[in-house]
């Protein structure tokens, strides 16, 4: 589908929009929190998908992974440039349980339940490292500070945790 989008096919893009706008908007909003800002960034991301569709290489992964990589990176770039300084100043204990700000429409989805089950199978340090990094947009040095562990430990836990997630969810690539 993205290959057709790359050829300027607006109808194909509309189908891609139908598939990806929810995950794109959802992950951006997860990181940024602010709905208006999330909408703006999600729009930029979806247009970026249109604009750069010819850079997508189906041999290297799924279209969703390609698009959501762009989305997450955009959101993280935005949050780092905007509140990096203020966030670094307050190294107070983070809110490690973010479940309360997940919308109900999210928690009832099959994918949410599946991911949650796999996250539950991780060690607490793996789980919290991954959630702080991916869902809150912290860098691994920030995660290390927040959790009070060494840099090297965080890097290892994130990698081990992600590998376990991959195997738990049966991801093959």
């Amino acid at each position, binding site marked *: 589908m993205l290959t057709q989008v*790359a*050829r*300027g096919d*607006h*109808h194909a*893009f*509309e189908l891609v*929009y139908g598939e990806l*706008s*929810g*995950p*794109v*908007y*959802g*992950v951006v909003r*997860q990181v940024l929190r602010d709905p208006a800002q999330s909408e703006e960034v*999600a*729009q930029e991301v*979806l*247009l970026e998908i249109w*604009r*750069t*569709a*010819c*850079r997508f290489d189906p041999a290297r*992964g*799924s279209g*969703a*992974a390609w698009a*959501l*990589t762009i989305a*997450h*990176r955009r959101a993280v770039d935005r949050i780092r440039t905007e509140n990096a300084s203020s966030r670094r100043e307050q190294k107070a204990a983070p809110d490690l349980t973010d479940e309360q700000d997940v919308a109900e429409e*999210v928690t009832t*989805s099959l*994918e*949410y339940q*599946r*991911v*949650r089950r796999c996250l539950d199978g991780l060690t607490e340090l793996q789980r919290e490292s*991954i959630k702080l*990094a*991916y*869902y809150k*947009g912290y*860098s*691994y040095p920030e*995660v290390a500070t927040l959790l009070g562990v060494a840099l090297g430990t*965080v*890097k290892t836990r*994130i*990698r081990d*945790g*992600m*590998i376990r*997630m*991959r195997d738990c*969810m049966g*991801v093959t*690539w």
Partner: protein
Amino acid sequence: MKNLRDDLHVLTGSYVLDAVSPDEREEFERHLQTCPACDAEVRGLRETAARLAMARAVAPPARMEREVLAATYQTRQLPPLSGDPLSVARERRRVQAAGVFAPRKSSWSRRVLAPGQASWTRRLAVAAAAASVAAAAVLGIAQVSTQHQLDTTRASGAAIARVVTAADAQVESAPSKAGGSVTVVTSAQLRESVVSATGMAALPAGRVYQVWVMAPDGAPFSARSVGLLQDTQLLAAAVHRGDRIGITVEPAGGTRQPTTTPVAVIPT
């Protein structure tokens, strides 16, 4: 120093979660070029991260779809890296298009819509019209000279954009007897229509195309003038259900009532 390579290998997880600094990202991407093990691992972990994103999917506000789809008609795509000749030719044509933002001819000319046609077709047509409006606004701005005119052009550009991106926008298109075709985008809620024409024959000096709103039952002679059709789109206000848009050839400057048979009549 002996740990440097190990340090990089262990970065796969942090890299796919975007938890690395821009410098580290760059360094790691260089490493990926030469380390098949990390490259393979990154692919799997990137798919895994995508699942973390999908688990948080939330439907965006409905207006976003219209805005994004309309914007695609104004956003040039990157050319493909390697040569699919069709895309290359298309890209070249697009670059040559005067207004840059102008939609491709193909999306213009196939736009004769039947009522009740699939909604995506309608939305694409609306988006194409929006892009064409944007191009017209650019051309219009290029043509005006004073600041006052500039402000006026911009204001009507915004009003036009509001109509073509309205949720209830309907597109009607019909061939004109003067060649080319006329397209009318109407928002019943806003009670406004945007009129645009392409490919109509040039008129002799002293003649103009004039646009009218005509009552449903109407003889063309109970018409209200919208304005003269020049290079840009026209906005017709206070359009009521069943009104039609007509175009006639009139003396320069226009007339109070149509004096000739319309070259095109389009339902709203």
